């Protein structure tokens, strides 16, 4: 059956993915809005940096993150001064790395949704007396919901599946930084195929169920508007 260590790995993975998506939503919604509407000359640079994790090999990204967050790195040093704890090989460090690694998967669908928005609907809300904040919450977000759901699903799934970055930055500390993908790799390395199967199948089923529910919800919403 599933060992305690494996269960811990599952819990760490879920916690990591959920936290990453939550933080990324908070960061990505304003960032995506800015990218969708700015005419600034920095737009291209920011877009490029945001998309970098898509094309960088995870080990390259992981390596630089490790340098950056290590005890001698700028962020690592600062973190030690602030908390007394090192950032590398900790769950917190893993969350930061995951956020950077999964950023494009969350930003891009939201940005695309914002770019598709009916600008006049927002202006109509303003002329009807809605403050900018109210218009954003009651018109922009609902009309972008498909992009938001896509962003959540992609961000969650991508974080769950990450391997290279985790290995570089988080290492393999049970209950702290050991995630399912690393646990599977370890099982395979020592030829424990049955345990590897269990975890792999679990990830597969979980991913399937989540996607199925999301697509089902999307379809229902769409149908609702067209009945």
């Amino acid at each position: 059956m599933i060992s305690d260590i494996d269960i811990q790995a599952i819990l760490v993975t879920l916690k990591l993915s959920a936290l990453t998506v939550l933080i990324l939503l908070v960061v990505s919604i304003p960032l995506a809005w800015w990218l969708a509407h700015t005419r600034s000359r920095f737009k291209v640079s920011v877009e490029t940096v945001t998309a970098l994790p898509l094309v960088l090999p995870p080990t390259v990204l992981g390596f630089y993150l490790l340098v950056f967050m290590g005890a001698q790195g700028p962020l690592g040093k600062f973190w030690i001064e602030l908390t007394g704890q090192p950032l590398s090989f900790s769950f917190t460090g893993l969350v930061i790395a995951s956020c950077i690694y999964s950023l494009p998967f969350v930003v891009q669908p939201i940005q695309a949704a914002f770019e598709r928005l009916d600008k006049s609907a927002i202006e109509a809300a303003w002329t009807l007396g809605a403050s900018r904040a109210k218009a954003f919450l009651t018109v922009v977000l609902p009309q972008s919901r498909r992009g938001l759901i896509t962003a959540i699903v992609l961000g969650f799934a991508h974080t769950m599946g990450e391997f290279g970055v985790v290995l570089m930055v988080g290492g393999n500390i049970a209950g702290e930084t050991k995630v399912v993908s690393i646990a599977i790799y370890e099982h395979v390395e020592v030829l424990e195929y049955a345990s590897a199967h269990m975890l792999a199948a679990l990830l597969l089923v979980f991913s399937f169920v989540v996607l199925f529910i999301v697509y089902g919800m999307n379809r229902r919403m769409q149908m609702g508007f067209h009945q």
Partner: protein
Amino acid sequence: MTQLDIDIELKRKEFQLDLQISLPESGITALLGPSGSGKSTALRVIAGLEKPQQGMIKRGQRTWFDAEKKVFLPPQQRRLGMVFQDYALFEHLTVAENVAYGLPKEARDYHVNYWLKHLHIEEYAERYPANLSGGQRQRVALARCMAIEPDLLLLDEPFSAVDLSLRQTLRYQLKELVKDVNRPVLIVSHHLEDARYLADNVGVMVEGQLLQFGKTAEVFANPVCYTVAKILGWENFLHIDEIAGTTVKGKWGSLTLDEEPHIEMRWLSIRPEHVRIAIQGQSGLTATIEEITDYGVYRSVKCILQDGTIIHMHRAWDEPLPIEGSTVSLHLPLVNIKTLPSYIQSIKAYPKEKFKNISPALSQTS
């Protein structure tokens, strides 16, 4: 209720809007003009969706915009109803929720019910906008902004998204709706019929400038220049090459007018319904009948003068006409001929008195 005063200047890279206009306390005003003339931008400026560089906008006692005093009320505080070109309905809300959007909670039910009923859309209350026809969508958009009891109603090309067959019905409904609304209504359109049927006053805009403004019938009957005349559907234009006393000459021939036209006059114009075939003893311009098109109650005759200028003539369906290809003499009654300058600067640059001096045709009929 007092009127709406606008005097604004907005500069863009390749476009400048310069508008000075006062709307009466109630009634419909239409802004006509080709696309790119700035009429939609004008509407957006009034709504507070664009900020001009100069000028002021006042609605009654309230200042909505004053560049010098640095006053700029955002659209939220202007309390106006705007119907957007594509209606801009909230696709994720039902019809009833759309209408309720701008209302405070306690007043919601009453007003939503009232406006749904008033505009005959109660049966669609629970539907989503995607499942409505163009005409129904327009009524939802109207109900949504009427529900907040706006001080001013703005409509941007309100009929552009509906079939031609529906237009007349919707125009009628709109006229009925605003009839008992005691506040200014401003419509932007490039359809002459919208203005003719709906508007009490008409403004004509070209390249960001207001070239003419006045009572609808007056504006349609007395365009101030060639450009405006073309926009208002005038068809027949004879270019003036030379003015000698009361006689004007062009490649098409010459005509002697009642009065000597002003030196700036460059065109003669006459509406197709005023052109007729000269009877014996009447002077006329020699033309060839190119084509006769039957429109039922009238026939449109396309004539070509010797220099190639085309003159359209509308005659009653039962009036006998020479056959296509025959040569005729066209009579242009002097009383119906307008003399026009090619183009005028904005109204600001051309005060009314000057118009009268330069346009005998204008002062003659008014």
